[in-house]
């Protein structure tokens, strides 16, 4: 009985900590201003929309990986997947939370766009170093 209680409580707090962790990752990127070229290539001008995420992720795969952002992208990717799943199932019963979920998914897309911006800058730096050599 005790094990069941601990399991339920732990899974609930795990989900809560995971959501907060992803939000803290996204919040640390929210102040980053996207470069002109990333805005052009992703189509994110005034603000990201939830549907931008898939496109930005495809663009990210075209860039060389930057070790510092891989874990964050995986975590936010999982958060985006959970939000999609929740929207398709649980949130249908609570329509008031739909705008919140949309806003969160848009946040995930902006986080991915910031990662793309940083990867492009990183690739440029590497290229410049190779040219110097």
């Amino acid at each position, binding site marked *: 009985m005790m094990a069941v209680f601990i399991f339920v409580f732990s899974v609930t707090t795990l989900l809560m900590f995971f959501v907060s962790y992803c939000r803290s990752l996204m919040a640390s990127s*929210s102040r980053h201003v996207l470069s002109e070229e990333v805005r052009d290539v992703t189509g994110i001008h005034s603000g990201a929309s939830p549907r931008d995420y898939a496109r930005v992720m495809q663009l990210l795969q075209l860039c060389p990986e930057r070790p510092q952002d891989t*874990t964050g992208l995986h975590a936010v990717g999982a958060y985006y997947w959970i939000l999609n799943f929740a929207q398709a199932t649980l949130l249908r019963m609570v329509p008031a939370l739909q705008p919140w979920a949309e806003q969160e998914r848009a946040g995930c897309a902006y986080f991915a766009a910031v990662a793309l911006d940083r990867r492009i800058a990183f690739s440029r730096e590497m290229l410049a170093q190779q040219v110097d050599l």
Partner: protein
Amino acid sequence: MLGSATLAIWYLGTALELSVVVCSVARKSFLRYFFLNLYMLLSVLTSVGRWYLILSGFGVNTDQYRYLYFYTDALLTLALYVAVISLFADVLGELHFAKHLRLAAVVLLLGTAAFSYSVVAQSADRLSTDFAYQLSQNLYFVGLVLTYLLWGAVLKVRETRTRLVQFILSLGLYFSACAASYALKNFTDRYDDILKYVDPLLGCLLPLAWSLTILRHTEETRLAPASLVVVPR
């Protein structure tokens, strides 16, 4: 006998624990987060001790290895509690009731230490796997409750330091996942084949998250407190 996958995860975990200390020293944050670093150093020393015992010919199923495992695990959990208390002190350092809170945390720490010691000492003859799972489940659950309270304090005082917030959230994730994993083992053995890899993997994620936090953010990086609340108020 440990499988190659288990050994690989173990080596990776130890390397990541060491990387937390290296990153802290490189970013001049070693003393700032002394107790977090102390926990990581103790984890590395524990791994070295366990390897030494295995290399000396004592397998993982021997009594010698079990004793070392139990006592070092209890010691590590206590070191992690001290790290949580140090985070409490950091978050609540400027509040007038911080002194009482620190005292309560120390009493809880000593109580847990005494409880763990007495349980292990009295049950030395039945240091079985089931018993170990139950003890670990309870210790991780206490850690989870402490971290949950700490997270409540972070939201209450509207903490903005990115590093501190991410350290606490990673710790919360770690304790929740460990407590859930041990609880699952306690009420069913159906997932044992998967769960035997889960715990060492969880042990890798905490140092990985802490290393990345130290590398990504400086002590001056700040977050908007409103962005941490799951559902905006």
